[in-house]
């Protein structure tokens, strides 16, 4: 993304609640709510893209870390009375440690086996969340999670700040020497190993950081809704994230952001029932991945190249 286009975009993103108030005063609450979702989903998709897009490991375990963070924050806030920032930090830590520990055995698997192993891990996490009633309250959900800020524009600020933090980390990890090492691992593992880049270490690093960030977003999500249920951490979340990534463009900051905006805005515009939504997302994902696996980002690049 060129600097010249980035600056006005950031300005628009920051001023969005006031712009919405000017353009559609009656709809402000609803539109700002959608904007908060967009920011949170964009941040979550970026954390997922660190693993899928930058080291090329198709992990299906992301909901486990999202859920681990959400439950950690929810439990610390409701039972131990921790303040907001402390319980979010706790969530990041717990999810990050979980990802780092789970990464050790999981990355001994390759390709399909890795995908299946991570999916199995996510299913186990969901089963635990549903059945460990003493801690998670199971299907009764954890309710009454306190909201640190109460107005929607303030929440939008929190979500945007979180997106900013994730964005900076994302850029830090995918550029410079570290980014080049990650891409080397993704593009040619034997060559990377030959150049003294330990593929396993970089994969695990991306997995742990991605998991920690997902945990933090999960914590914010739980605080924002003030309720968290096991259904929030099923396969459906992985499918949503895959749609965002492949719609926009895997491994590309602009692609993932565009994907997140389209993904959260489209269903709101179309007002779909959840079941039909998943049918359409599934079909969309199928068409994109078969016809144009680089997503919209591939389209942007081709147009830029043609000019």
């Amino acid at each position, binding site marked *: 993304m060129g600097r010249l286009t980035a600056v006005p975009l950031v300005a628009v993103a920051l001023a969005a609640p006031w712009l919405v108030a000017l353009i559609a005063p009656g709809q402000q609450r609803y539109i700002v709510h959608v904007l908060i979702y967009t920011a949170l989903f964009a941040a979550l998709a970026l954390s997922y893209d660190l693993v899928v897009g930058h080291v090329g490991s198709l992990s299906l375990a992301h909901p486990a870390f999202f859920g681990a963070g959400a439950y950690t924050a929810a439990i610390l806030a409701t039972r131990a009375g921790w303040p907001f920032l402390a319980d979010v930090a706790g969530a990041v830590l717990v999810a990050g440690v979980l990802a780092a520990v789970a990464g050790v055995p999981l990355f001994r698997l390759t390709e399909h086996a890795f995908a299946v192993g991570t999916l*199995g891990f996510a299913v186990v996490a969901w*089963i635990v969340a549903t059945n460990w009633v003493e801690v998670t309250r199971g299907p009764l959900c954890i309710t009454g999670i306190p909201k640190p800020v109460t107005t929607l524009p303030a929440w939008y600020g929190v979500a945007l700040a979180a997106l900013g933090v994730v964005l900076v980390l994302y850029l830090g990890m995918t550029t410079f020497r570290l980014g080049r090492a990650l891409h080397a691992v993704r593009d040619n593992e034997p060559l990377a190993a030959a150049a003294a880049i330990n593929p396993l270490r970089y994969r695990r690093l991306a997995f742990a950081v991605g998991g920690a960030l997902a945990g933090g977003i999960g914590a914010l999500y739980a605080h924002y809704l003030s309720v968290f249920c096991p259904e929030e951490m099923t396969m459906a979340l992985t499918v949503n994230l895959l749609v965002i990534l492949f719609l926009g463009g895997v491994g590309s900051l602009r692609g993932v952001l565009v994907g997140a905006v389209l993904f959260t805005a489209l269903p709101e515009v179309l007002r779909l029932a959840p079941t039909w939504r998943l049918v359409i997302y599934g079909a969309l*994902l199928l068409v994109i991945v078969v016809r144009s696996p680089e997503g919209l980002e591939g389209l942007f690049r081709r147009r830029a190249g043609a000019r």
Partner: protein
Amino acid sequence: MLTDVLETLVHGLTLGSMYAMVAAGLALMLGVARLINFAHGEFFMLGAYAFWFGYREYELPYVVAGALAVAAMVVWGLVYQLGVIRAILARSWHVQLIATLATSIVLTNLAIIVFGTQPKEVPTKLSSTILDIGGFRLAWQRLLVLGGAVVVFWALQRFVTRTRAGRAMRAMSQNREACAVVGVDVQRVALVTFAVSAALAAVAAVLVSPLFNIFPDMGTGLTLKAFAAVVAGGFGYVNGAIAASFLIGVVEALAGSYISYAYKDAIAFLIMIAVLLWRPAGLFGRRIGI
């Protein structure tokens, strides 16, 4: 006590038969076409609904409804291969995995829209008649499942070793290029593979549905367990996948009865991950060939 253990074992073998028929199809696809079909559990789900439709809605006899369901799923296997798989056969495994995962999401949610989330029951005369041998009780349907599984796997073995199409499938699983060179119609063999795999899933659905309920999202868990069996059996090795399926079924039944019912699936997946780590080439240490 002893009868309890026996009943649990029979339950485990029933589950194992179901997993094995689904896993065998998955292993065939992987062995012959080098393709992971994440929508394979949905084949079972569709087969089960096709059977329910004939058996309950049209009140056809069990055998007729079953045969129609299997025939319908063979057609579906061909349609799926031509419509979805042909476009991704030569692509990377990322693309294949996501495309078939997307198909599974579409099928599951279409099933929710068409059939609703209320489970469908298809009790048969055999599933409600209990055989009692000195306190050891089991439904006749379970015997039908076990017997059916034996016949199906015997027929599958005959098919892949004795028939032209079956031999072509084995040859493809060993060396695709050489097959093309000597004039094997590679595309047709892939089609046959999908038809056979879909038929296996449908047979499993017809045999097992009278014992369990039918619901739209039954496929996802089944795909995962069948996949676990395929991985544990050695990628694409059909007999390995069948053996591993029975193991998973029995372990799941024992864990469900004696450890924790709520966590039985978690235990099955943890064992899968453990096998993956302990023996990445599968329990039987064979990777190539069906």
